[in-house]
């Protein structure tokens, strides 16, 4: 491995190195505050090196890792999400009386897995990244054990995730059996030469099962509401962003590089998943009374929306799905942020009833939540609006009329349950007595403030982010 290659891997090396440092510091003396700051500084360092690596890109490191502006952007996005997760979870972890520092190790490992996926163009690195991510998630989901069902949720995720990994692995094996290649560029060539055979189609389908599980697409979504509900709010936010983001990045790269859009069978498969996710997610969310479950179902439908952009393909498809993902990350972190700020260590504010009359007690907080919900619903002045506009534009541009109309219909259904939370916050009667003495931590407030600024900024002045995404999409398409 040349020095040049190592230089380009610096972001990943830092992300991998911080947990080692934390472990060493634990060996010397446990100190939560120190670990917290070490993690934040580590993330900032990773961020700086991401920026410094941009001019070097693209670099293929051996055959399995590619560092280009696309992967760097996604790693940056994931790292930024983790930054917010740390800020939001500080209070939770601080109240736990044992093993606080391991939380940060697990998060960093999950981030590493996700980042490896974002920069993989080979089945081996894909699977490696996926497993690093999943194994850390098993621990994270049941990390805060106050709730009765968190251990159950962890085990549930363990079993389902292992099964889906097995599917993925089997799919990869079938594809390898047909084409004899495991790196994406090689696969693309072989696919162009041989076309899709029945066996490789089965392989692709199995891969889609594995991918669909991680992205919580219908019908592989069953785990999502339970896990989101059982995990603590910041961890749910983490699952909704980091674990899905890495998988989506690699899917986008895989599909674009293989030029999957020209194969009708694959397009059909993804279209079915997209429509099912948009409709099922939104319809099932209507029945929920638990904010975290609503957010879980809403995240299912949002990945349906992203699939529409993904299916639109081309430069516009990459741009719009990436923009939507970024907007969605900010918004969903904000939403889970609200839940975690309002929650106590052992008493989470997860029912809609907990939010009744919030506006009259804590106007600022409820305005922030309203902004987040409006962003999820795609209403102007928020990032979600530009995101939805972008996705619709990509869909219309590729004449995916059915998908686009389903998207519009589904988001109207979605509006209903977002409004339910908003209405409850603005209604007069209040049941917030138990929380009136809740003190906000500085870290949580800072995170929410930043996220709100981002949601509004991307909604009112999106050109900056769009410009970055457009350059990365151009680079990505051009080779």
């Amino acid at each position, binding site marked *: 491995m040349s020095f040049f290659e190592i230089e380009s891997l610096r972001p990943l090396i830092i992300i991998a190195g911080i947990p080692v440092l934390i472990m060493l510091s634990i060996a010397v003396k446990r100190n939560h505050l120190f670990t917290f700051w070490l993690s934040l500084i580590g993330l900032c360092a990773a961020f700086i090196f991401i920026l410094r690596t941009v001019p070097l890109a693209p670099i293929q490191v051996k055959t399995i890792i590619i560092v280009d502006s696309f992967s760097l952007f996604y790693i940056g996005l994931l790292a930024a999400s983790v930054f917010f997760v740390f800020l939001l979870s500080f209070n939770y972890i601080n109240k736990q009386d044992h093993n606080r520092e391991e939380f940060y190790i697990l998060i960093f490992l999950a981030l590493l897995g996700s980042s490896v996926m974002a920069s993989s163009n080979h089945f081996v690195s894909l699977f490696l990244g996926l497993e690093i991510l999943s194994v850390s998630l098993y621990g994270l989901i049941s990390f805060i054990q106050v709730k009765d069902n968190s251990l159950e949720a962890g085990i549930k995720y363990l079993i389902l995730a292992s099964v889906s990994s097995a599917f993925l692995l089997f799919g990869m094996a079938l594809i390898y059996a047909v084409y004899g290649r495991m790196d994406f560029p090689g696969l693309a060539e072989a696919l162009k030469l041989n076309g899709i055979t029945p066996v490789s189609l089965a392989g692709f389908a199995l891969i889609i099962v594995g991918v669909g599980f991680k992205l919580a697409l219908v019908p592989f979504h069953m785990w999502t509401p339970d896990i989101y509900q059982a995990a603590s709010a910041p961890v749910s936010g983490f699952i909704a962003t980091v674990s899905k983001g890495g998988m989506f990045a690699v899917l986008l790269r895989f599909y674009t590089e293989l030029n999957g859009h020209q194969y009708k069978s694959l397009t059909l498969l993804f279209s079915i998943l997209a429509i099912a996710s948009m409709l099922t997610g939104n319809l099932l969310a209507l029945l929920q009374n638990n904010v975290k479950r609503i957010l879980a179902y809403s995240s299912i439908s949002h990945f349906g929306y992203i699939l529409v952009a993904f299916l639109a393909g081309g430069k516009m498809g990459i741009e719009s799905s990436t923009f939507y993902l970024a907007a969605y990350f900010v918004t969903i972190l904000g939403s889970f942020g609200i839940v975690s700020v309002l929650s106590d260590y052992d008493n989470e504010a997860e029912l809609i009833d907990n939010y009744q009359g919030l506006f009259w007690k804590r106007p600022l907080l409820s305005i922030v939540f309203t902004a987040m919900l409006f962003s999820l619903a795609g209403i102007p002045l928020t990032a979600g*609006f530009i995101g939805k*506009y972008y996705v619709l*534009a990509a869909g219309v541009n590729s004449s995916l009329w059915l998908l686009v109309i389903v998207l*519009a*219909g589904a988001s109207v259904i979605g509006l209903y349950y977002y*409004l339910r939370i908003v209405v409850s916050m*603005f*209604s007069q009667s209040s049941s917030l007595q138990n929380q009136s003495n809740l003190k906000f931590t500085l870290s949580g407030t800072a995170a929410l403030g930043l996220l709100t600024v981002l949601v509004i900024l991307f909604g009112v002045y999106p*050109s900056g982010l769009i410009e970055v995404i457009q350059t990365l999409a151009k680079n990505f398409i051009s080779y």
Partner: protein
Amino acid sequence: MILAWLIIILMLGGILAWITGRINPLFARWISLVSIFIDSIIVIKIWIDYKQQINLTASPSWFIEINSKWVPQFGINFHLALDGLSLILVALTVFLGLLSVLISWKEINERVGFFHFNLLWILAGIIGVFTASDLFLFYFFWEVMLIPMYFLIGIWGHENRIYASYKFFIFTQASGLLMLLAILGLYFIHGSQTGIYTFEYMQLLGTKINPSTAFFLMLGFLIAFVVKLPAVPFHSWLPDAHTEAPTAGSVILAGLLLKTGAYGILRFVIPFFPDASKDFQTVAFILGAAGILYGAMLAFAQTDLKRLVAYSSVSHMGFVLLGAFSFNQLSLQGTVIQLVAHGISTGALFILAGMLQERIHTRDINVMGGLWSKVPFMGGMGLLFALASLGLPGLVNFIAEFLILSGAYQANIVLTGIAALGLIASTIYSLRIVQKVFYGSPVKEWPIPDLNAREILIMGALTVVVVWLGLFPQHVLDISKSSVKKILNSIGKTEVLDNNHNKLEEITLGK
């Protein structure tokens, strides 16, 4: 830049009102009043400039505009522009805006700051809708005005407010999304033809679209606008929203929000899709006539005063559909007048209903009656605006309906004949209001005061406008002339213009 200031002043005023309203509600009220007042002065100045200019030059494309880049990657500009049609509607907006603050002075006592924030932001959004000359910006403002309206209904509304606010929001959102799809369709068709991807109104105007696509795109726009208007199968959100909203909300809904639908038809549907619109004429006429009669019939059946007025709106807005799709100068000018007339007269009736409710805490007309002797002044006002609403000559509604019907007559005699029956129906329901509320023997002894100075000021302003425009509609017709010409140009009806125009002046000036 002056157009941007119209919006910025309202938005800043809103934020300021919210912040200071926490200290003292009176600050919020005064700040709102002052910021809308500043806007009115600006509008009056523009109006005077415009009047001077129409005599000098022949219809310039936009009178004033501001154009700066917003999202250059998509060809989205922050482009506000104003012509005669926009100017009239912006003027109506600030006028009703001022009244809305005044009528809320005593009615709203909770969360006053936030109320005025919402009020001013709705007005800002509406002015944005009326002046946006970039389709993306238009859609943006279209949505922006809905959110504060939703809060206005949902927080300060009456008993059934939650249901009404849901219904309002979901109806308008769903139809808005269809419009967004249509806008995007237009954007990409234009882009693929010319290689310029832009949302600029003027550039998109000449886009050649094949007829079947044009029809679907037109439907996308039209559905959004007829839901707002509302035309009959899509009207069911309106009675709920109007009835449950606080008085200021009802006034803004009826006086301004419905106008955005009409404005959209005049500004976008007809110029963008002239051929598709012509094909759609008969359907639009049927919808319009159905709206006029059905609305009137339902209005007659109501016992809730606000609901009654709400259904009368459905009836009045049927005329707009009729006028817009007649494609001649008479009816288009009539449509513009109708927008103003309906805004004033229905606004006034909602204000009266609000004043009554404030005094006797009910909107049920069966328990009213015989109020004339107690509140003669209010009774007189009620009679005046009921007469305006039924189209009494001398008041502005008459001019509007007369122009529309005489224009529509040239397009479709049978349906116009049916629509004209609406005039009889409107007489019945309008007189029923006066009959039930003010005449007859009292059902209950209500100890109520007559109008106070503030209320007299409100009603007086409305009266002046309704009479003044009823006698001198030419003031408005002059302003809207060039816009109407533009619409007619876009559907290729230039040749008969002057001929028609002479006829119009004869009618309106009584030559």
